[in-house]
């Protein structure tokens, strides 16, 4: 209470904050950035360790012998897939049935809000097939899932083959205490969404799926397998799920533990771990891995088929078999043994995976940065906004400094004759900015028919182009708001408007960082300097450039270019632009198909906040 009620103490603090505001802001921003960069330094990040008792101490012996059979299943599957021109439903069902599993099928249909150009689909029909291995040692109260996608062309045949071979082998074992579901989905994430909605009997999206489903127990963990070659050199593990959700770190630890045991190479974000840590190159390597993870998480897109499980509180991973030019290759038996080991350990679980971390960043597979360690980086960035808020908010809105006889000294720029800035003046810009956000969110999908009738474009293009058009048109708003105001704004109104913008921005970034740290951090990194610096007087060109660079769309473009750079396949500007356009369409689709919140947050939250800042810049 001392700080809140003692005027002496407050005065000292207020003087410090007001006098040293700009240096403190710069310092805080630098500290935030520096803190984040330091996270990749290996000694700072602790090693991963297994927290879950049931999976840590027990030993299992893997014996999976059916490597050849897996390849044979894979070839059969490929043949039947080619013959059926899609999912070989009948063959899969029969095979699962012959293996002694309960086989089920789930047809589903979904009409996309607009055609998906990159995957070339609009009205999707498909069927998921799955078999349930009933646990001999328990009632069907808990289950594990092994899934593989049935993709077009030659992809993932071996994954389905291995899945069937594992089903055959698991069927003959007696130690299972959890049901195991072997799932083959069609149309990648759409099929997965349909299956999860059907299994949990909810309807979150407009997915239509038919018939009652055969069920096992509550799903405890899921592993999604992608494998397109007969032998592999390494495994890449994908963790980021929908909206940047991550699985419990123990599941990842389990995978790394078995990879080490079987001598498999494994990578994350396509990056192999380096054995040394004390060189600059090693630091740059782990920074690259960390940045790739941050970008992937910030996109809010599931990085594999597992991404949708996480929403149902099911811990899940995608394992991707990679066949590169390395000399040493692993056959199906080794891969199968790894999976067998993982499933047996998961089978030992007594309760949900909850011991280890849910919020983490991975600079390498064996090191992690937990929430307590990475949050200060964002905290320092947000502190810049808070310092600016205290600078603008203190003299304009709280007259305590003026009413206290001594406090008056602190605010020489406020003369007592000047009336308080009317809040009514600010209503039109605030309303118009948010209306622009609503238009950005609703119009592209609603107006696609109108757009295709009047312009010679396809629907998907129409959606993306409308999106860009509204986004850019929003930047002309300062002129229209001034027309509404007709010169009613006093000189100080812009300070209150800026205060509002800063408050909204810090609130949004703060709550966003709780939901998806990477997204919050990336946006804070770009938007905070511009938001702190912008004001109507001052070098206009410089501020315009800074603010345009900070807009979420440019951040997205830069993020795409940076990701390609980090993956060592740099894209030129033209290619970057194409990727940007498809990312916009994908972002919208992800929102409508799976409920990812990136698109509404950007359109309804950050874009209006940015427009408010843009208004401040052009305040007259």
């Amino acid at each position, binding site marked *: 209470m001392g700080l*809140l*009620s*003692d*005027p002496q103490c*407050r005065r000292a603090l207020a003087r410090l904050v007001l006098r040293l505001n700009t240096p403190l802001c710069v310092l805080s921003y630098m500290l935030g950035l520096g803190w984040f960069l330091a996270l990749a330094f290996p000694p700072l990040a602790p090693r991963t360790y297994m927290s879950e008792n049931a999976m840590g101490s027990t030993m299992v012996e893997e014996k999976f012998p059916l490597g050849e059979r897996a390849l044979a299943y894979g070839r059969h599957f490929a043949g039947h897939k080619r013959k059926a021109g899609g999912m070989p439903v009948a063959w899969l069902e029969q095979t699962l049935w012959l293996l002694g599993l309960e086989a089920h099928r789930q047809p589903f249909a979904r009409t996309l809000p607009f055609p998906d150009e990159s995957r070339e689909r609009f009205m999707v029909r498909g069927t998921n097939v799955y078999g349930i291995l009933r646990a001999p040692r328990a009632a069907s109260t808990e289950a594990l899932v092994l899934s593989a996608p049935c993709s077009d062309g030659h992809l993932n045949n071996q994954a389905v083959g291995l899945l069937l071979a594992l089903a055959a082998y698991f069927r003959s074992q007696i130690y299972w205490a959890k049901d195991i579901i072997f799932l083959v989905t069609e149309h990648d994430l759409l099929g997965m969404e349909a299956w999860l909605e059907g299994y949990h009997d909810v309807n979150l999206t407009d997915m239509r799926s038919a018939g009652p489903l055969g069920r096992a127990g509550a799903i405890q963990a899921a592993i999604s397998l992608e494998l397109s070659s007969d032998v592999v050199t390494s495994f890449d593990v994908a963790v980021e799920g929908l909206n940047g*959700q*991550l699985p419990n770190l123990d599941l990842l630890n389990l995978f790394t533990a078995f990879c080490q045991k079987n001598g498999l190479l494994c990578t994350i974000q396509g990056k192999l771990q380096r054995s040394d840590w004390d060189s600059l190159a090693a630091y740059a390597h782990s920074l690259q891995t960390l940045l790739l993870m941050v970008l992937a998480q910030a996109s809010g897109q599931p990085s594999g088929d597992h991404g949708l499980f*996480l*929403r149902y*509180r099911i811990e899940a991973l995608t394992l991707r078999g990679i066949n590169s030019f390395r000399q040493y290759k692993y056959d199906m038996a080794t891969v199968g043994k790894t999976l067998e080991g993982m499933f047996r350990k998961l089978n030992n679980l007594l309760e949900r995976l*909850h011991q280890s971390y*849910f*919020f983490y960043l991975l600079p390498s597979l064996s090191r992690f940065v937990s929430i307590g360690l990475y949050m200060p980086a964002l905290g320092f960035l947000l502190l810049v906004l808070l310092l600016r*808020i205290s600078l603008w*908010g*203190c003299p304009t*809105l*709280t*007259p*305590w400094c*003026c*009413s*206290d*006889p*001594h406090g008056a000294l602190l605010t020489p720029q406020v003369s007592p004759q000047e009336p308080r800035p009317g809040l009514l003046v600010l209503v039109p810009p605030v309303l118009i900015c948010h209306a622009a956000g609503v238009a950005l969110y609703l119009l592209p999908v609603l107006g696609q028919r109108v757009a295709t009738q009047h312009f010679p474009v396809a629907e998907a293009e129409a959606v993306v182009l409308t999106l860009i058009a509204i986004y850019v048109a929003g930047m002309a708003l300062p002129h229209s708001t001034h027309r509404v105001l007709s010169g009613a704004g006093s000189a100080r109104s812009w300070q209150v408007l800026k205060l509002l913008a800063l*408050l909204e921005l810090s*609130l949004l970034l*703060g*709550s966003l960082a*709780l*939901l998806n740290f990477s997204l919050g951090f990336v946006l804070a990194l770009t938007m905070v300097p511009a938001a702190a610096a912008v004001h109507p007087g001052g070098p206009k060109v410089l501020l315009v450039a800074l603010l345009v660079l900070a807009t979420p769309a440019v951040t997205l473009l830069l993020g795409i270019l940076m990701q390609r750079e980090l993956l060592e396949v740099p894209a030129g500007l033209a290619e970057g632009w194409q990727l940007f356009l498809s990312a916009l369409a994908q972002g919208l689709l992800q929102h409508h198909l799976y409920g990812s919140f990136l698109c509404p947050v950007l359109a309804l939250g950050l874009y209006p906040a940015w427009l408010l800042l843009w208004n401040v810049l052009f305040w007259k």
Partner: protein
Amino acid sequence: MAAPLALLLLAAVTVRAALFRSSLAAFIAERVEVASPLSAWKRVVEGLALLDLGVSPYSGAVFHETPLIIYLFHFLIEYAELVFMITDALTAVALYLAIQDFNKVVFKKQKLLIELDKYAPDVAELIQTPLEMHYIPLKVALFYLMNPYTVMSCVAKSTCAINNTVTAFFILATIKGSAFLSAVFLALATYQSLYPLTLFAPALLYLLQRQFIPVKPRSKSFWLFTLQYAALYLCSLVVIVCLSFFLLNSWDFIPAVYGFILSVPDLTPNVGLFWYFFAEMFEHFSLFFVCVFQINVFFYTVPLAIKLKEHPMFFMFVQIAVISIFKSYPTVGDVALYMAFLPVWSHLYRFLRNVFVLSCILVVCSVLFPVLWHLWIYAGSANSNFYYAITLAFNVGQILLVSDYFYAFLRREYYLTHGLHLTRPDGTEAVLVLK
């Protein structure tokens, strides 16, 4: 002044009607911040279903509203949305009329004190002018109707809105000086949610002040009036309770409503302070701590009554705030009621120290409630501690806000009598510090 109020009511009803039709209504109705176990609409529907089956509505241990409410909706279930919109509008109108009257009284009193030379000579800038006071009633109505908390509470059909209406009518009756109606509405409010019992003291003080009866334990007329008011209050309470008994023909509702409020058996998370403590606590301590927690609501009444004996309306405001912070199942609808009174104290503005920081805290907490709820319940990556931390911050923010207003009020009163420019004994300028 009727036209702006009508316009405001129209706008408020439009917003509510639009929200009732949107997909947000179902989402809002499920929010724990808006619907408590006492006031959730789902539970009222459950109670109605039981009543229709000819069973006691309390037999399911789900329904905890009073019998009068269930009979009200027994007849009006078809028009529930309309009922909630009308109750909100009625609350706003009642508050509007009450504050209009209150302002007249304040102005008269101020004029009298100036004429009697009770104020220090240099306090002209602290005096409230009619120009400033003119829009206050409208602002009060605006603060109530357009407060997002009220809107959400109405859209969720939380019966808290009805309690607010009863309390607003009680305030109106008190300010109009009708002891009988005031007692009746106070009894109704008490019957609805028990805690308004503590509003007895400010109402009594206000009525006494209005009738120019000095608050002195020795004076006979003081005791006479107190007894009269208390008797009126108790009689109406007895009548209402008996009426409820005859409606249902059983006393089931006493333990199901008041026992439920006092013993706090339902630990569903809400914006209050109770749930987390009692979820964590060993069973055999819970009786003691229930008493400790419940006493908070009643504890502050006596010291506040002594300190604010000359200012019963401010006392009423503080007491309503205390109820909404410390009650066992608070919702944001309760918060909205005392927030509606903030414009009445806008003349304290220059003495408020932290109002900007505190309003930021309240807004931030309101946004973080659903975020952390999502992380805890749906994502599974956070836990109850995260949510409770925000609850705690929200309540600390509210407490600091109310105490800020309280200090500001006391400071203004001090300045009014001692002059704005205080000097120390040695002649230098002094700063008033409250510790």
